[in-house]
């Protein structure tokens, strides 16, 4: 296996002309066709990415949509469709790469979810997206506005097969608390490029949980900026790259307001020939962002030979007047010595592996903070282990 862990710490240029983040734009002309040598594309297999780089409309047919959406929306939430350019669509997310620009161009009816001020939802909003054809394109835009002092959880679950471009924009207004879970549980031939962009208001709290297990190629941007002091963002992720899978997560936190916090924690397991995981973390601390606190971490657990994990944390600092900033990237291996130790206590080798992988993920899962979601995630990990490793859940329980 191969691992690159090259931390970059650089002084960013005023106006943020960072090489990692070309100027965002709705205009496709500003996002020319990449050739794979660009900094933001160099880890992505361009041949497999190709179907997601052309301008194409939704390839839905009458009674035969590419992606079937099923919505479960609790009372008190307003839903609507937003045409291109119709506010509040586009207020938070400006496309940062070509797939995101294409998603926006190709979608003329974005789903709008508004959680009114002071509303606390007891049940999560659920959006199940089920792909029905690996050869056809779906362009989706979702707009979520959590009004001041509201509290909600939104769970996206992606299954089946399709070529999906997806933008999710999230406006977490002052004092609101929003948890967004995005589960990528695609079939083996799905292609998925997404940009999830959030703006976190004064004293607001945003938690984003990415869970990427399925798909041939999954490339997720998760971006956060702030709209006032005191905002807090937690970006958690877990992923399992199996043989031949490319799973890429690109995180960008723009500390553009003082006294804000961010915590990025991604963990992934890799197994099998040409399993490839990419994690790019970038935190920018602007001159105005005094007193902020940030930490980004990525841990990979490599279970077999032949897998490759690329992990690059970046920190661009324009002010030293901060409470704390750090990052770490580690890669662990489940090796013969771990296996020997656990099996020498009577635990069979398959169960030993399950223990280690579940243990690796459980820390993150426990931090989601919503028992119902946590149980579902544990079940998803169990299922992923059962299908990819042939590990059936054991009778001994799953709690750590």
């Amino acid at each position: 296996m191969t691992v690159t862990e090259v931390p970059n710490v650089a002084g960013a240029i005023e106006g943020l002309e960072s090489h990692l983040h070309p100027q965002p734009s709705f205009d496709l002309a500003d996002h020319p066709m990449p050739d794979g040598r660009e900094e933001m594309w160099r880890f992505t297999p361009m041949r497999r990415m190709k179907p997601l780089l052309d301008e194409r409309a939704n390839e839905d047919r009458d009674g035969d949509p590419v992606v079937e959406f099923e919505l479960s929306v609790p009372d008190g939430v307003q839903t609507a469709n937003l045409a291109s350019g119709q506010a509040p669509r586009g207020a938070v997310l400006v496309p940062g790469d070509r797939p995101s620009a294409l998603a926006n161009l190709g979608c003329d009816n974005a789903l709008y979810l508004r959680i009114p001020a002071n509303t606390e939802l007891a049940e999560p909003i659920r959006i199940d997206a089920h792909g029905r054809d690996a050869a056809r394109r779906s362009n989706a835009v979702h707009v979520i506005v959590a009004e001041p002092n509201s509290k909600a959880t939104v769970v996206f679950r992606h299954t089946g097969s399709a070529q999906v471009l997806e933008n999710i924009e999230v406006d977490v207004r002052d004092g609101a608390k929003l948890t967004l879970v995005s589960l990528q549980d695609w079939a083996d031939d799905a292609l998925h490029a997404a940009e999830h962009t959030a703006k976190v208001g004064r004293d607001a709290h945003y938690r984003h949980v990415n869970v990427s297990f399925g798909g041939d190629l999954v490339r997720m941007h998760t971006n956060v900026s702030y709209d006032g002091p005191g905002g807090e963002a937690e970006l958690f992720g877990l992923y399992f790259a199996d043989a031949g899978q490319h799973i890429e997560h690109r995180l960008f936190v723009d500390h553009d307001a003082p006294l804000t916090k961010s915590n990025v924690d991604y963990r992934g397991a890799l197994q099998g020939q040409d399993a490839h995981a990419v994690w790019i973390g970038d935190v920018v601390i602007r001159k105005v962002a005094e007193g902020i606190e940030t930490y980004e971490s990525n841990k990979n657990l490599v279970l077999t030979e032949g897998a490759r994990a690329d992990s690059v944390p970046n920190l661009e600092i324009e002010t030293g007047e901060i409470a704390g900033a750090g990052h770490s990237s580690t890669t662990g291996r489940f090796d013969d010595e771990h296996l020997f130790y656990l099996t020498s206590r009577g635990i069979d080798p398959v169960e030993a592996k399950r223990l280690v992988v579940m243990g690796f993920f459980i820390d993150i899962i426990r931090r989601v903070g919503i028992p119902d979601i946590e149980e579902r995630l544990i079940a998803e990990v169990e299922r992923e282990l059962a299908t990819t490793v042939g590990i059936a859940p054991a009778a001994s329980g799953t709690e750590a």
Partner: protein
Amino acid sequence: MSLVISDLHVDVLTEDGPKEILKGVNLTINPGEVHAIMGPNGSGKSTLAYALAGHPKYQVTSGTVTLDGTDLSELSVDERARAGLFLAMQYPVEVPGVSVSNFLRTAKTAIDGEAPKVRTWVKQVNEAMTDLGLDNSFSGRSLNEGFSGGEKKRAEIVQLQLLNPKYAILDETDSGLDIDALRVVADGVNRYTAQADRGVLLITHYTRILNYIKPDFVHVYVDGRVVTEGGPELAAQLEETGYDSYIAAARANA
């Protein structure tokens, strides 16, 4: 009913190829007996421990080991443990993410073939921790992660107490322990042997631990072979003379 080692030859796999470490070991451990294996560094003591447990790096080239009549070469590492063999390791590995409590319950379930009863099990675990001087908070920590050397050794004996195997191999469990920790660990081993039907293979470089755990037999290893055997008095004699004369004799015979 016993652990019988007959003319055991073992190679260790190195980057330069296999290297013979054990050159014909004979040893019978009956239930209720404590056997101390002593020897200088490089004598093959730990190789014997790992070979018995079935570590893939150590290959038995000839000879046999039977546990209560079962040929161990037929069994995988986990099957050996389920047959009643336990190895307290000299350097227990850290297993991040797997909590001590989850690990102990999973191991106990594997060994017994059924999950332990929840109510009594938690109490048993807490008692074993207390007996070995470990705070109950260790239950929630990742297995061996960030444990000091002494804490790792105590945790091995916690496992011995809870899994209660038929035969226990203790591989230099005493090394690196201060005198208080040594006493606590020895008490744990003595509680285990007090059952009177358990066999212990106590591997050590030093005689110090034999002041706390009384061996019935002492075997001295040099260069992969037993060079002398006797009762507890042999340990006392070694304390005086050291291994030098045995090493010199082994060299002369080589």
